[in-house]
């Protein structure tokens, strides 16, 4: 599965040319992609004066681990991290709930108006997010009919994430690909729609659920503009929203330590689940439309 055949590799010019390009690419990746993060990690334990005087050198006066604890306690990072986790968990729950139930209803139960509903979901994919920002805020400020305000609540921050057409498409396509014989067999054995969903369809959907889940959590962790608008109270803001506002008044090394903490968790999460991020066949299908 490559444009380089074993015959090509036997030619010296090709082999060395290829090795050169690959080595140069690896070097570029390490410097450009990993480099900034290593610099962040280094600077998180380097006193501000050292970072300012010689930003590239390695600890002219030795690393200072107390900066990390200082950032943790003085900036109250634990509270913001809890906010982030709550929002990410809520965002994950609503996205998985909406995507699985909707995908199941549209793919397996197939209601009469299913096609129209699916088209209405698909249509939202083509609406730029910009169009939604202000009216979404005003909707969350006063929900239709009940007139509750979700501004300043975690729910206001994570519930809109559930309206992801992308997730519904991935789920529906995956359910469409499940072997119908198994579903029919379960029905003949007397499984109703709920049991079919819970005991047959969901357990078969683990791979795609994993993909939807990791992207849902990462997106919630990365989100900035929506929580910024909907959570005006700093005590409820996630760490990503909080950092830019405390940046101007915080000592550089302490800020860099806080940034390192805030970046370390999603990086760890990515490294743990990298298979789901990097080999997401479900996404490929959805992108190809």
């Amino acid at each position, binding site marked *: 599965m490559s444009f380089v055949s074993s015959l090509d590799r036997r030619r010296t010019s090709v082999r060395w040319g290829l090795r050169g390009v690959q080595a140069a690419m690896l070097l570029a990746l390490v410097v450009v992609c990993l480099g900034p993060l290593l610099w*962040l990690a280094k600077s998180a334990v380097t006193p501000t004066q050292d970072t300012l005087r010689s930003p590239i050198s390695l600890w002219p006066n030795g690393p200072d681990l107390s900066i990390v604890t200082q950032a943790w306690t003085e900036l109250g990072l634990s509270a913001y991290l809890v906010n982030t986790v709550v929002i990410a968990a809520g965002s994950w729950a609503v996205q998985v709930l909406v995507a699985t139930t909707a995908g199941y209803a549209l793919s397996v139960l197939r209601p009469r108006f299913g096609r129209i509903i699916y088209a209405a979901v698909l249509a939202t994919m083509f609406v730029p997010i910009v169009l939604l920002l202000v009216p979404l805020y005003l909707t969350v400020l006063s929900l239709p009919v009940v007139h509750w305000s979700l501004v300043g609540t975690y729910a206001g921050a994570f519930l809109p994430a559930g309206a992801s057409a992308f997730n519904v498409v991935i789920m529906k396509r995956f359910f469409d690909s499940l072997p119908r014989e198994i579903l029919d067999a379960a029905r003949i054995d007397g499984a109703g729609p709920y049991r079919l969903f819970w005991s047959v369809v969901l357990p078969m959907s683990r791979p795609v659920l994993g993909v939807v889940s990791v992207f849902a959590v990462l997106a919630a962790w990365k989100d900035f503009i929506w929580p910024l608008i909907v959570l005006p109270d700093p005590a409820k803001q996630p760490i990503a929203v909080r950092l830019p506002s405390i940046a101007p008044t915080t000592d550089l090394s302490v800020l860099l330590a806080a940034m390192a903490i805030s970046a370390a968790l999603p990086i760890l999460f990515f490294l743990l689940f990298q298979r789901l991020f990097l080999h997401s066949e479900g996404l490929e299908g959805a992108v190809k439309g």
Partner: protein
Amino acid sequence: MAVDISRVSGPALVRGPARRRTSFVSGLARWWRGSAATVVFLLPMLLVFGLFSWWPIARTVVMSLQETNLVGPAAWVGLDNFRTVLSDPLLPVALRNTAVFAAIAFVFGYPIPLVMAVVFSSLRKLRGLYACLAYLPVVVPPAVAVLLWKTFYDAGSGGVFNTVLGWVGLGPVPWLESADWVLPSLVMEATWAAAGGTVIIYLAALTTVPQELYDAASADGAGVLGKVWHVTLPHLRPVLLITLILQIIGTAQVFLEPYLFTGGGPSHASLTLLLLIYEYAFGSTTGGGDYGPATALSLMMAVGLALLSWIYFRLTRGWSD
């Protein structure tokens, strides 16, 4: 659903009239339970999409024609909001900056993931390591990435980039302080942050190239570069066409970088359309609260982007095969 169930209870029907009636009643009951279940399963989506997608979209159109202060009832003002936006001297500035940002992002940001994916796919080993490194910036929260790059771009002695440039006798470059440099600087960070995601899409598409095509090209005497040019790239064309329009739509809505790096400065040199919308609605400098003009501009942008995509797909319709 109803059809499936009647098929399942089919054998029971032949047993006799009495049996048929109970079967009909229980069939009806099952049908009702079935469609009730359908409603139950559709409900989360209908609620969430209705509240947070369909209703706000419909509301945009209404709100762009209204003036509202959120306290009293909204007043119909016809096309006044559109007039306000179109006569705003900042609109052409924001439009130009957004177009320049999208153009630079296209020239630099579009080919990079493609080159990366092609080189990655030539690897027999370590492809996972390359992909992992390339994806790392994508998982960094954008707010952290921007703050980090801000210290890199620092014009003072602590600026990482200017220190490095100083070693080879260049600079210092006023990365974020000069009107000429600010947009390229923002594009550079945005490309760093986003390229990995596109690489993964291309890599996935590259694994679907049939090996026979490469073998046939080899048999015809094509070298490595020949195969990339005549087999790999044509095979990627449909994906490339989609990622291109997605990138244009995405960069047209750039907000985070100008908002966090410069707040639109220096002297509006990085003010983008989305930043202008944000300023109308939530801005601190103007006081915000101008929801009418904000939605009017959103609507115009959305229509503009929809038109652009439509023209794009019409023009490129024949290119996918």
